[in-house]
């Protein structure tokens, strides 16, 4: 139908190469830098780095479904949700001796799901813009967590140390992350994946084609909540207890990680893998700056600069890809 047009190399690359590759390359660079700065990193230090990075990685993954679902999709409350989960575990379950593994895990997932359902209802049924709705729930969940747990506690059941163990070939948290990834992978095999991308990139097209836009978005918020629940569980283990003030600090980092990972904040492009890679990248940058003894101001500024560079590069990449 149309004449063949020779496309410039850069454009072909931008079209063929998956969205997460630039972030992956950046991670490789950061790994090299880190290894050159710290001798123990390659021989096992990386496992600990991964353990400390894991709450952020999981929260970035949690952020992905809502961002993908488009329509300004965003969940500011993921951090507080994770915080709330850890408070529920440490201040509600454990003092009552309800610390069996299965029960703690189920409660963590349900708490996350409940938080997700609240967001989903506000955004898709009440139709409040996501940034406002989840800002409200951010405040509510954070407040609730402080209410329940005034001061940090540090008593955890034995089994929870499994999450932070680095004795195996791979650190155990990696299995948690891979498990979440696997569930997501199965989900992308269903029609939900196509529904989600279609809704995220052009909701009018999706709606007129017969996709149930409300249900697809509702589910995205719910999934985000459940994953934030998993993150809360891991966060509790990594902290070795609960602290109501820690959760909220993760929210903005998780969103930055999603942008770094190559997901389109406008929705419809990306995936959980990219979000995870973005989180690892962000954590490695932070880790490297700490190794090189940068001050916390410099750290903050570095975050900001990295984020701007990532978003600009993302946009340029996208323009190349879409150029006719």
């Amino acid at each position: 139908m149309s004449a063949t047009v020779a496309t410039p190399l850069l454009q072909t690359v931008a079209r063929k190469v998956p969205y997460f590759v630039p972030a992956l390359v950046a991670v490789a660079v950061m790994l090299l830098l880190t290894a050159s700065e710290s001798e123990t990193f390659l021989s096992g230090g990386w496992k600990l780095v991964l353990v400390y990075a894991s709450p952020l990685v999981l929260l970035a993954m949690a952020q992905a479904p809502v961002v993908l679902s488009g329509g300004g999709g965003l969940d500011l409350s993921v951090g507080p949700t994770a915080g709330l989960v850890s408070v529920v575990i440490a201040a509600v379950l454990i003092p009552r001796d309800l610390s069996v593994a299965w029960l703690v895990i189920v409660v963590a997932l349900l708490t996350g799901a409940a938080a997700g359902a609240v967001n989903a209802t506000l955004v898709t049924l009440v139709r409040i813009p996501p940034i406002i709705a989840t800002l409200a729930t951010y405040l509510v969940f954070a407040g609730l967590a402080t209410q329940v747990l005034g001061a940090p506690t540090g008593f955890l059941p034995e089994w929870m140390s499994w999450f932070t163990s680095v004795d195996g070939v791979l650190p155990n948290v990696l299995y948690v992350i891979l498990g979440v990834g696997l569930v997501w992978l199965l989900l992308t095999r269903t029609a939900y994946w196509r529904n989600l991308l279609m809704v995220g990139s052009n909701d009018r097209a999706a709606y007129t084609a017969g996709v149930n836009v409300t249900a697809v978005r509702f589910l995205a918020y719910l999934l985000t909540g459940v994953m934030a629940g998993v993150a809360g569980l891991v966060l509790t283990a990594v902290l070795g207890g609960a602290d109501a003030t820690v959760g909220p600090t993760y929210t903005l980092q998780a969103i930055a990680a999603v942008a770094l990972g190559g997901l389109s904040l406008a929705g419809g492009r990306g995936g959980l893998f990219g979000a995870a890679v973005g989180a690892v990248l962000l954590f490695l940058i932070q880790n490297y700056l700490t190794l090189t003894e940068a001050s916390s101001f410099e750290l903050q500024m570095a975050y900001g600069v990295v984020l701007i560079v990532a978003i600009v590069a993302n946009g340029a990449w996208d323009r190349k890809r879409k150029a006719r």
Partner: protein
Amino acid sequence: MSTPPLEPAVVELAGITHRYGPTVALSDCRLSIAPGEVHGLVGENGSGKSTVVKLLSGIMRPTEGEVRVGGKAVDLRSPAAAQRHEIVTVFQETLVSDECSGLDNVFAGTDGIFRRARSGRAEREAAERVVASLGASPAILQSSPHHLSLAERQVLTLTRALVRPWKLLILDEATSALDLSTRDRLFAVLADHRREGRSVLFVSHRMDELEILIDRATVQRSGRTVGTVGKDEATPARLLSMMSGRSDAGEHHVRAGARSRQAADVVLRGVDLSLVAQAPAFDLDVRRGEILGIGGLDGQGGSHLVEVLAGVRPTASGRVEVDRDGSWTRVTGYRQAFRSGIAYVPGKRQEEGLFPSMTVGDNLSMATLPRHARAGLFRSSSVLTRVREEMTRLGVVPHDPSYPITGLSGGNAQKVLVGRWLAAEPDVLILNDPLRGVDLGTKRDFYALLRELTEAGTTVVMLSTEIEELLTCCDRVAVCQAERVFDVLEGEDLTYDAVLAAMFGRHVSDEQSSDEQSSDHDTHRKVTL
């Protein structure tokens, strides 16, 4: 006035009223579609055609009245519900997602939330069959649609409708984005379906298509149903007079006086121009004060050419130059072209033209705001006066600058887009298929407006997919074929057959020597059911 349907209606609208806030888009609308018929729905811009389409497709529910499917009142509360009643629609806007593959665009919405209705393979086969029947390449299903042309995108939305089970297919100006050969293929496909007892609701402004295709037609005027006429009565003159309520409306096919311009007085030129890499180079002169038409089949370089002339798209080689007070200035980009007096009206109205969150007035005054500024501040009263003038000149309905642009009918939105650049009073106005989806009355006014502009010294370059339009309104026509200007026709040589032949890379003089080829021609002009 109306002929009774022979069998019970597939779909029926009874006593429908629809309001958008205070705007009454439909009042007492009646429509009845019989099995196995192609039913035309015609009316001027804003007469409520798309509103009817939206009610039948489950996008909106009527304020009052009843939708009946197979004689029973139904509640089409969502597009999915309409599809369950086997009503499928191709909308006036080409609704495709750029992030999903063509195939996903076609089948999204057929599945449940998790459950897939078909295997990937079954999907591919079904879609490829439909795409092939429309004469398009199956490659459009594989990649994501960013770089597809408007026509190819429209093939995707047609495929989306045709792969679903349907008894009523609604085409809301779906043909206006198609090129001739695809359109003819579509008509042939529709003929087959019609024989199997399926019905089509066909919304179009193109009288030639209506004449070929329809069995009956219903006419809308300002939201009211004027009546339904049978094929014999549905002549262009009759339909036009029913649409406008005047009796003289049919007589518009007068060729505007084409004048030949001084060949020497060139205002814009392409030198050694090559549109895409490896395409043959050519020269093109645009003469001061002329209306130069650009024709050609879709994908043959027509829209590349206008984009290159407007500086929106870089040339593969060669250069475009514009006359600035006697010296040639090279066109290097869009802004620079605009400063050199070239204004460009893009073709994809949704994506490239309008600002959906703004009002009609804002959209109209966008390009000219700086002129109304004093010390960087806009004088809104002077902007408003200008906007009102422009809206009157173009006949934008409703005549309200504060109306949201998304509340305009498709044709009226197009008028606003064109009007924005007219307001900039450019030396050279380049239009990429400006009258897609605009009704005949407005088209006629628009041709007259272009004439007026050229009288005042403006030069117009206009791409059109309709040969009739090129003949009616242009002084010369450059026909693109295989990414170059194949021929420039003017005066005596500018005929329907010559343009058509050039679109296929032939000269009409070659054609006349061979009877076989000229009958080949006719099949492109008319496809009968």
